[in-house]
């Protein structure tokens, strides 16, 4: 028996249940009532989400040049030599792994945004659980069985999948390639994504090739059922036609991520109105031997990063050549970063926050956020605390790329999150705050180190302001302030040391687009 060649339309296969009487759904039946919503329904923008499975080592991907010696001390056996780090124009403090020359080029062209230290308050170190958190957009201690993209599509496409496809929406709302476990597109009732059950099956549909079956009557009947399965896929014909209509593409590198992105480019150019494409690239679970033992610029992790960098660059060039680069942005993410300190086997263990990348012509180029504040001598459990909540990245994409309004924003994200300036303001015509503070000007404390108490001073522009205390594993151990200030200005909080063990802690302040983390030391 060969692999499946059957492409499944999981949308149409799930239970039709009554969708609760949500006013949004009613509005959608009459989009003219809500022009804002209409705009979001009819825009032709697509998002490509690249999942880097396994937990990417963020510190060897985006390297904090400004604290190079702390970086080196924490992971001498795998640290990238300082003179090999790729420089980023206008951002001297931060550089890229030498395997990522194409990302350097994209960055310097203003088509790449690096969001620093993305994570969430109570990091989970299980691949499964962390993946579910990222896909659902849940809190760490909360179980949500819908995906963030599923909720977005559900608010926008009423009563899906009943009566889909239709004239207005002839294509799958989301196409998922390379993984069949994604919660990302699970809506409240059904999965909103066309799940391509097996990557090879998807390629087979595109190529029109058939797989062998055994030479028995079982094989004879299996071929029959497969044929019907193919015919009954409501979207199969459109997908194949879209794919076939694109004959000229740039050369892509030879790896599975590139193959997936190449198909995505064809489908978008071929006219599919699909909003979301999910692709997956695995192998980032680098517990051992992540670099070559004598040359840390090459090895397993470098190869992975090179594949990501080259594949995305080829995709971006293809987008430009196909003249669809206005319509497409992409995002990478991994379920967690890795530990600050490397282990003795030349690898890194499961960690917490890590950088992620946004790419595309309409992405605001640059580095968002500051380098993580690394400890002087990292211990085995030390993690990078989160600076930017991953849900604020999601929220920014929803609001500034898909132009989701505030009512839907809350329904999709379930809570209010900041909108970060990651996408060109012109896309949705929404004026965006710029980050006005950076570094120590935003938060400071004295004395530091401290024993009995320390006084934390932080700036706010007014509005919702959050002050948290995190431990070295990256977990929030106390929310110090969570309030809304009427005015901009300096505020303070006195943190008493009597309940804290001696050691390193982080304080994090979040106020709109401004999010900063500072290391403090209890003695």
């Amino acid at each position, binding site marked *: 028996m060969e692999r499946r060649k059957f492409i499944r339309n999981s949308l149409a296969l799930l239970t039709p249940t009554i969708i609760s009487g949500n006013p949004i759904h009613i509005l959608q039946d009459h989009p003219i009532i809500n022009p804002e919503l209409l705009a979001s329904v009819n825009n032709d923008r697509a998002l490509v989400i690249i999942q880097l499975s396994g937990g990417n080592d963020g510190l060897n991907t985006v390297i904090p040049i400004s604290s190079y010696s702390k970086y080196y001390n924490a992971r001498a056996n795998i640290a990238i030599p300082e003179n090999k780090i790729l420089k980023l124009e206008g951002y001297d403090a931060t550089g890229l792994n030498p395997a990522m020359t194409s990302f350097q080029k994209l960055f310097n062209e203003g088509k790449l945004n690096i969001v620093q230290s993305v994570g969430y308050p109570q990091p989970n170190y299980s691949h499964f659980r962390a993946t579910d958190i990222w896909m659902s957009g849940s809190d760490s201690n909360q179980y949500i069985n819908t995906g963030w993209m599923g909720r977005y599509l559900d608010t926008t496409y009423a009563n899906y999948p009943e009566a889909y496809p239709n004239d207005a929406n002839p294509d799958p709302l989301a196409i998922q390639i390379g993984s069949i476990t994604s919660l990302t597109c699970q809506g409240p009732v059904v999965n909103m994504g066309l799940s391509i059950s097996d990557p090879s099956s998807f390629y087979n549909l595109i190529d029109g090739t058939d797989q062998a079956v055994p*030479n028995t009557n079982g094989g004879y009947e299996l071929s029959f059922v497969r044929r019907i399965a193919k015919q009954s896929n409501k979207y199969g014909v459109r997908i194949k036609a879209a794919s076939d209509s694109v004959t000229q593409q740039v050369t892509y590198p030879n790896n599975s991520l590139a193959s997936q992105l190449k198909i995505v480019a064809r489908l978008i150019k071929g006219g599919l109105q699909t909003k979301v494409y999910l692709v997956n690239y695995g192998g980032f679970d680098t517990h051992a031997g992540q670099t070559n033992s004598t040359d840390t610029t090459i090895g397993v992790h470098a190869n992975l990063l090179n594949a990501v960098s080259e594949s995305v660059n080829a995709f971006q060039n293809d987008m430009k050549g196909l003249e669809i680069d206005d319509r497409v942005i992409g995002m990478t993410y991994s379920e967690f970063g890795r530990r600050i300190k490397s282990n003795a086997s030349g690898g890194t263990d499961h960690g917490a926050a890590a950088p992620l990348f946004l790419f595309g012509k309409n992405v605001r180029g640059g580095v968002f956020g500051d380098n993580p504040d690394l400890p002087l001598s990292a211990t085995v459990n030390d993690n990078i605390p989160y600076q930017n909540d991953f849900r604020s990245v999601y929220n920014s994409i929803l609001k500034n790329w898909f132009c989701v309004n505030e009512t839907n924003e809350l329904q999709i994200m379930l809570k209010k999150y900041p909108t970060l300036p990651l996408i060109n303001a012109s896309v949705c015509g929404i004026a965006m705050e710029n980050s006005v503070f950076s570094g120590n000007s935003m938060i400071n404390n004295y004395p530091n180190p401290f024993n009995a108490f320390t006084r934390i001073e932080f700036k706010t522009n007014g509005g919702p302001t959050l002050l948290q205390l995190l431990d070295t594993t990256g977990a929030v151990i106390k929310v110090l302030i969570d309030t809304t200030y009427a005015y901009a200005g300096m505020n303070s909080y006195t943190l008493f040391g009597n309940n804290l063990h001696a050691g390193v802690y982080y304080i994090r302040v979040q106020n709109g687009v401004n999010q900063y983390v500072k290391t403090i030391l209890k003695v």
Partner: protein
Amino acid sequence: MPATPLSSKLGLTPYTGPWNKATAKHLLKRLQFGAKKSDIDDMVSKGMLAAVNELLNPTAPYPAPPLNDYSSATVIDTTVVLGYTWVNNFNTDGTINSYRRLALKKWLVGQMIQQDRSITEKLCLFWANHFSTESDIIAYGNYVFNHHDTIRKNCLGNFKQLIKLITTDAGMLRYLNGYLNTKTAPDENYGRELQELFTLGKNVDVKYTEDDVKAAAKVLTGWRINSTYNVYFEPTVHDTSNKQFSAYYNNKVITGKTLAAGATETDELINMIFERPEVAKFICRKIYQFFVYYYIDDTIENNIIAPLANIFIKNNFEIKPVLDALFKSEHFYDSLYIGCQIKSPIDHVVSCLREFNIVFPNAVTEYADAYYLFNNFLNQMISIGQNPTDPPNVAGWPAYYQTPEYYELWINADTLPKRNKFTDLMVETGYTRNTKKVVINPIEFAKAISATPSDPNILIDDLFTYLISTDQSATFKANLKKQILLSGQVSDYYWTDAWNNYLNNPTTINFNIVNVRLKTLLKYIMNMPDYQLQ
């Protein structure tokens, strides 16, 4: 893939090859609705001969009859109380009868779901298709029940006896107008179908004539239904002339008889028909096509059908010896025939419920909840093309006779997505009635199906061993494991840890980590085209 269906040269010689889970599963899936893991394991240990013997010799008590589950403030049955059976009660009210027919369908679905370990339910479906009637045409609920009750009581008995009973069955008399067949205006309906559909078939070697149909119709005149709604023979409307049959029946003359003796002509007619060797062949072909595969060429005809027909005749049309020879034969276990049968809609629904060990409320003591739940599955069967007790016409469901597609007719662009939707629904939500929930429990199922569910390789192997009849490559299984159970990771211990974490600390989150992946895996497997085959 073979360009055409294939035929095995193997005949009825008893099978002596390997007896394992694959062969035991093949036997169980063909003779029952679905093969439960516990039954497969038990049958493996018993051996082939004992397994077939057990399946052909039911020991379960005869089931309690269907009940009144319909009485309410608006539906008033003046003669049968809610919770009591109506099968011995005649009622002329159309509404009441529609509720009784529906109650019978639900009851029947319940019998199939809660079947004993025997061939009974599958064989009841076989004969109900063979002696096809439509309940809404028979109309009276108790007639419909009696028709299916006759089949149930004789499904493993004597075929000739069964024909005699069906010929004077009230349901059949109504369905094919036998009760209107009188000497002044003979109705040929049953006289024709008795030969064409129930005994001889339409094969080229069957050469009865139109005159034979007319003569048979005359023989059958006089069967009536009286004012107490019982079948009786009315000599005054019986045609007492001599009935001349064609050369095909050796120019037989059935002498017309008066008074009560007129009824004996019916036995004579049946005996005459059963003199033809084509009867045994026709029935054996139908048995073969129902239980093995639809494709019959000269090889199958000579090596299987002819010898089975001989057994049938030699045993005076006892059904069991034919089944015994077939299910113990090397032909039945030839790998050519493993997994080549497309599950019928009834099979698709019932096998899923049974194989996942879904427990239902008691059909007698908790009949209201049970019938309510059975009704959901009845509707699922109907939506994918098979309505129990209501085949489309007297020929039965086309998937059992229509060349060249046969049971491929069950699967099309409408029904296949619905089949998948049904299994998805059973994994996701199932059905609930008064807090009684019937749904697949992925974690309990994993524990039941696998001795080592913490090992993702063993778990996936076990799932395919018990649920799927076609072989899967190691590459495919490894891919499935990585994509689903490991969420893209390469190390098996991530699944093992997640499983053990759940066992040791069954919090909601730990439960969901395991459960969501198992659900995805089960849905995936049941959405594979392979799952439609058995």
